[in-house]
């Protein structure tokens, strides 16, 4: 863990130095030196522009992701538990899982207009299917002897569900939530760039077309940092819920 962190830091520092050198020797419009990006980032931060846009984007992200988690887990549990539900839905889920979600953006505009609802819908669609599939797989992979054991000790079907299936499937569900988080961030930026120019996505488009590369990179870096933080949050939740699994992994 410690040596991993050290190598992480070395990697980042190396990249930063190379970037700075590249920016100073090559075209600073295409590759602005890191110091220049840093000052652009500070400028955006002080003006309040970055923060207000970020808050707006994160609101969309949170709403869409929350819906995707709730609905994705419910549908996944039903599909994993009932073969009929699985066969009824798996065709669409599998198709949509690998389909490029950007293709649905025009349809969503028609359905939900250009407001925040459409952006939430994009985030939702990006995130939901991977959560459904992982949840379903988790439920289907529950060790049958656990079910037998619980029934043998007199568990009712609801008890089998809450005491066996849900905790046993939790690592897989959380893996789906983690993957869904990554996709949700992609959905957020995509929606803000393709749908209506708002939030972080709008800043990217604006600075990109104005050749303000230093500000552009400042925004992109912000997105990377946000993605990393949200992933870390999901990881912490995962450890809380399935700590027993993490211990097995360490062994």
């Amino acid at each position, binding site marked *: 863990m410690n040596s991993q962190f050290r190598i992480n830091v070395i990697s980042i520092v190396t990249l930063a130095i190379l970037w700075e050198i590249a920016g100073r020797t090559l075209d600073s419009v295409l590759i602005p030196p890191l110091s220049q990006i840093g000052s652009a980032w500070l400028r955006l931060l002080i003006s309040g522009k970055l923060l207000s846009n970020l808050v707006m984007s994160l609101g969309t992200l949170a709403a869409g992701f929350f819906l995707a988690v709730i609905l994705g887990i419910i549908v996944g549990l039903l599909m994993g538990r009932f073969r009929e539900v699985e066969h009824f839905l798996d065709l669409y889920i599998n198709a949509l899982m690998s389909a490029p979600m950007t293709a649905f953006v025009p349809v969503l505009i028609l359905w939900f207009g250009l407001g925040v609802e459409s952006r939430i819908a994009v985030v939702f669609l990006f995130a939901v299917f991977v959560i459904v599939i992982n949840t379903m797989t988790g439920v289907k992979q529950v*060790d049958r*002897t*656990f079910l*037998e*054991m*619980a*029934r*043998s*000790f*007199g*568990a009712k079907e609801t*008890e089998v569900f809450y*005491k*066996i299936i849900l*905790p*046993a499937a*939790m690592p897989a569900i959380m893996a789906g939530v983690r993957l869904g988080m990554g996709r949700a961030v992609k959905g957020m930026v995509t929606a803000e760039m393709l749908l209506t120019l708002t939030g972080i996505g709008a800043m990217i488009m604006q600075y990109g077309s104005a050749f303000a590369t230093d500000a552009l990179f400042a925004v992109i870096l912000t997105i990377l940092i946000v993605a990393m933080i949200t992933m870390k949050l999901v990881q912490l939740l995962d450890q809380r819920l*399935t700590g*027993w*699994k993490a*211990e*097995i992994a360490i*062994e």
Partner: protein
Amino acid sequence: MVEIQGVSKSFQKILKDGTTEVKALADVHLSIRENEFISIIGPSGCGKTTLLKIIDGLIPHDSGKILIGGKQVTAPGPDRAVVFQTFALLPWRTVLANVEFSLELRRVAKEERTSIARDYLKRVGLEDFELHYPHELSGGMQQRAGLARALAVNPLILLMDEPFGSVDAQTRQLLQEELLQLWQREQKTVIFITHSMDEAVYLSDRVVVMTPRPGRVAEILDVPLARPRIADDVRRDPKFVDLTNYIWDSLKKAMENGH
């Protein structure tokens, strides 16, 4: 105590070219006395485990009757508890919480179930491991926890499905001795599935030999060894050697007839 009267069971097996019916048990008759330790031995696939699950009420049988204390078995009940070959301990629960699981399902209040679970963990020698997770324990210790979970609900009948089949030989002998001591104190009817002749003879009052699929009772043998049985003495006793040899012959004969 337990009356098994003409029990048969078939499974639908789904193959590429349609389904076929596999007969697992055919007309099994067996009468088990109260507080008896009875072993069921037979070749792999003879339906021993199926029979145990039917007695537990986990799976239905096609014909015949199972009576426990005169009442017909249709579902799992509080008078029976199973010890599983693969332990079936929940990996997200500590050892203590695993033993409490069976009590939780029986609606025992939290404090009471913790104290009962602790008591049984002590009886199987796991009192120092109650906060460990199953994967931190050896196979033998895991099965002790499985045994404590089954005993904790205080069943009349203990159903053991090759409980020591997946632990090493030395641990297996220790567990056998511990089980006998526990059984002598607790006074329970034990139905013990095994494929080890040694184990069956050492532990049991009677040994039931089953035929290959479809499983039926080939022979029921009394074990003429006095109790309490000291493992080392018993294994050298000519009666023990004779009986294990006899069971081996009987199994061989049953297997030859079956093919």
